[in-house]
């Protein structure tokens, strides 16, 4: 533990990693709470995996992968938002199709881009230890965007999550609000891509909010608590990863999973004895 803190002061890559973990936790607490209360893990998974298509295309055509990820995630958020309201029974199929096709397109693009095959795993599993200064700037902008969207639309998001039909009946454009909420989640996915990777995004978005909702039944508190949990998970994961030379994304997600299961057990014990 002490050696980690000593290293933290001397290595800038660890400082960057910690800053990235902080920004990711902040966004994750916000977006994860809405994923949890809306029960839209599948949509979130769909966007996360399809983002690889954007990353692959940017690598192939020589753009910034972050920019590709942001554009594709927003595009899919809009499509899935519309499908949710207009697609009827087809919703699941469309999500599955975008999930698979987006990811496959990404793999093929990266396959044809010489010299990039090694980096594929960084997008899929994340590597917080490779976060650069320019990545950090992008993460700050994304985190600020996520927070700004939440601040402006908080009440509308809560309303549409609880009862979308009623929100629509009160003269609020439910579809638009829902799409803005998915865009907020999509931007968070891009932030998390750097930390835990696209494949583990669903787990990392779910665990902190699920753990937090055991301790509070107020949405604003769940958001704050899951941000804190999320930071504890990523910080602990980072220490393990550094000390035992483990893949960071997997270490962070496993820590989150263990603490979640531990919380369930504590809660079960507490409920049984009270």
């Amino acid at each position, binding site marked *: 533990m002490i050696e980690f803190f000593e290293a933290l002061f001397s290595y800038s890559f660890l400082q960057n990693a910690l800053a990235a973990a902080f920004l990711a936790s902040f966004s994750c607490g916000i977006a994860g709470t809405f994923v949890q209360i809306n029960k839209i893990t599948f949509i979130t998974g769909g966007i996360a995996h399809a983002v690889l298509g954007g990353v692959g295309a940017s690598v192939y055509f020589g753009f910034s992968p972050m920019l590709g990820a942001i554009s594709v995630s927003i595009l899919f958020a809009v499509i899935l938002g519309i499908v949710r309201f207009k697609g009827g029974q087809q919703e699941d199929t469309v999500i599955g199709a975008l999930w698979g096709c987006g990811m496959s397109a990404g793999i093929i693009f990266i396959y044809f881009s010489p010299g990039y095959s090694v980096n594929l795993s960084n997008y899929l599993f994340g590597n917080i230890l490779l976060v650069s200064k320019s990545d950090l700037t992008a993460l700050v902008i994304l985190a600020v965007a996520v927070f700004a969207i939440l601040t402006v639309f908080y009440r509308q998001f*809560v*309303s549409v999550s609880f009862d979308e039909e009623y929100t629509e009946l009160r003269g609020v454009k439910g579809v638009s609000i829902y799409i803005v909420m998915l865009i907020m989640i999509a931007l968070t996915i891009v932030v998390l891509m750097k930390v835990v990777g696209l494949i583990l995004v669903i787990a990392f978005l779910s665990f902190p909010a699920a753990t937090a909702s055991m301790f509070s039944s107020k*949405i604003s508190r769940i958001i704050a608590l899951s941000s804190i949990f999320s930071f504890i998970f990523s910080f602990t994961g980072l220490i393990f990863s550094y000390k035992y030379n483990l893949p960071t994304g997997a270490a962070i997600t496993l820590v989150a999973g263990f603490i979640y299961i531990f919380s369930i057990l504590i809660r079960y014990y507490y409920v049984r004895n009270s």
Partner: protein
Amino acid sequence: MSRVISFENVSFSYGRNKVLEDIDLFVEKGDFTAIVGPNGGGKTTILKLILGLLSPQKGELKVFGQSPCKSRIRTGYVPQFSVHDRSFPIDVENVVMQGLIGNTSFGPFYSKNVKKKVADIIEKLGLTQRMKDRFGDLSGGLKQRTLIARAVVSQPELLLLDEPVSSVDSSVEKDVFEMLNLLNKKMTIVLVSHDIGFVSKYVNKIACVNKTLVIHNAGEITSGIIEDAYRGKQVAVNHSCGI
């Protein structure tokens, strides 16, 4: 009296399945109308048409003389409470505030004015003690009260209720109807119910729907010698709409 709802020759089908056929329904200001009928008879479809959530394939439908989508802001709606996720983290106060979401601007907090209106209606409906309770943890009767509070906090001119007493016990049922009776002094009410007996004590019009629609004037049927307590049965017996 001014007309609040008018259906003229309205037909509606879900795909090939015809649910409503050439129905006429007129609701005047101050009416307390019950729509009764068997499951799948088209009761909820009528409410959804009035709210503009569905549009008729044939016929003309006006609410406050306008298309339903335009008039929905003047309407309060109480859905069946079973549609809500029980684990959703929201308290009674915030559910009621949702009734004013259309009138408020963006930003994370509700204004003082909204909070005051919500506190007033919560007090009127006797929910002050439960204001901070999680909605999903409430009993059926209290959930129903909360949803009625949400619907009337915007002071609508028309209140629509979908099976307001479907899963509550009979004392709560009486309670809900007494409350609606009071609200009826200020607003027109249309409710959907499967229980014709209880409903007919309080309403002045009963619309029986089973693909087609027949309107009965509850007052006419029950006037005269029939005891209040038997009204329900009498109305049921006199109906000729096959339910």
